């Protein structure tokens, strides 16, 4: 358990020399969907309903990055390549970045700061309830992602960040419940999440 936490700091420092290119590369790759979105917006390539497209793309990338974040630990176990751990925090923060854009799209373009309507939506519409809950739960995780916070929170940090499993589950159901009829895409996310959670459960048992 210690190693799991320290993977971010001390172990990270040791392997820093090994794969220096990894972090900048992942940083740029994660920024790419956003850059493409802006380019498409400015050149009118977002189709007939650009707001819907912005909402869908930022939502897609939130889920993708969230699942990618969750796959770092299994990937490291399988590959034995420790530098992977150094990008986990960044992936988590990018998840929060896209989640924020997704939420802002809803806040500004769907509701235009109509808090009363937003509140009604949160209470009445299960998919909004879940989406909103998972966004709110991401905030403390993003806020406690610094080295200082990890040190200060000690063992509580891990407990807090285990919330990511709940967040991911809420996020996947948020998607499943909003689709009108064609469930293929949300089911792909659900399947991947199930595999990631399953791997952890299996690890836990076989320990």
């Amino acid at each position, binding site marked *: 358990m210690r190693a799991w936490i320290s993977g971010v700091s001390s172990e990270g420092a040791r392997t820093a020399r090994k794969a220096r290119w990894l972090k900048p590369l992942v940083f740029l790759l994660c920024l790419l969907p956003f850059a493409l979105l802006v380019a498409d917006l400015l*050149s009118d390539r977002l189709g007939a309903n650009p707001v819907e497209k912005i909402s869908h793309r930022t939502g897609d990338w939130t889920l993708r990055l969230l699942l990618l974040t969750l796959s770092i630990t299994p990937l490291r176990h399988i590959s034995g390549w420790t530098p992977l751990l150094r990008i986990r925090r960044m992936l988590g923060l990018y998840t929060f970045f896209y989640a924020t854009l997704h939420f802002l799209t809803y806040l500004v373009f769907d509701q235009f700061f109509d808090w009363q309507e937003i509140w009604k939506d949160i209470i009445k519409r299960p998919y909004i309830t879940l989406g909103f809950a998972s966004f709110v739960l991401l905030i403390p995780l993003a806020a406690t992602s610094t080295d200082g916070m990890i040190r200060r929170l000690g063992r509580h940090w891990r407990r807090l960040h285990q919330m990511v499993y709940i967040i991911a589950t809420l996020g996947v159901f948020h998607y499943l419940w909003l689709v009108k009829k064609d469930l293929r895409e949300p089911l792909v996310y659900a399947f991947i999440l199930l595999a990631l959670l399953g791997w952890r459960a299996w690890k836990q048992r076989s320990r």
Partner: protein
Amino acid sequence: MIIRSQPRHAVKASEITPPRYYFNRRRFITSAAALLAAPALGWPVESRPARPLGPYTRSRYIIDEPLTDYEDITHYNNFYEFSTDKEDVAELAKDFRTDPWTVIIDGEVEKPGRYHLEDILRPHPLEERIYRLRCVEAWSMVIPWVGFPLADLIKRFQPTSRAKFVEFTTLYDPAQMPGQRRRILDWPYVEGLRMDEAMHPLTLLAVGLYGKVLPNQNGAPLRLVVPWKYGFKNIKSIVRIRFVEHQPVSTWMKAGPREYGFYANVNPHVDHPRWSQARERRIGEFFKRKTLMFNGYGEEVAQLYAGMDLRRFF
């Protein structure tokens, strides 16, 4: 850039556009792009040359709202027979064969038969109507349809006194319609109207839009347009019109009886179980606008539903 010829009836935007339309997408984009002096980032979009339509007149059913762009009307289509992705339909439907086309008219009717589309259309003068279209997904458009009143066709084929409803069926042809190869919905698509709704002067059979032959992705060669109902009632590529005594079960009713009813009247006060219907996004605009009761056609159609509980009969 897409070169789009002005429809001949187009009114200059400066003459009619109220300020609230100024902040629309294309203007926003143009100014944003100019600001960044973005070079020609967009690649040309190839549109198939639309076929011209025969002569038609302009009807009195015109709403005074800016038309949705032709490009948007023809590239944002809910037509699950081709794809559940609205932006894939145009491409997937481009080789769809609509000629020859036959329509079966049967059920409680004096002149049943299997008719060539030309024979169905021949006696009916075409007219243009500008209607709002409100999708159940909370987006909307303003579309200049060309067609003729369904009532005229119904009178011609003479339903019997037992005909209380009209049931429409879309073509079932998985070889041409890739979406039908998966059972997303219970194919073929079926829709229905009560006889008085079908006979209502607003109810249209469309064969064209923007003065051109109806593009495949918009339901060629023959589709229904009922402007006060949600878009899914506007069944596309019709191959059968049947007169029946009992209320038909539509495809969406089968798919989600709690979510989609037979009437499907646009109603901002009755939400879809999963999302609000109070507002809608007009395609071409950024912010949502209020949805109107019966999509703004209440004056014409409200009496059809007098005394009915619209929460129950949604």
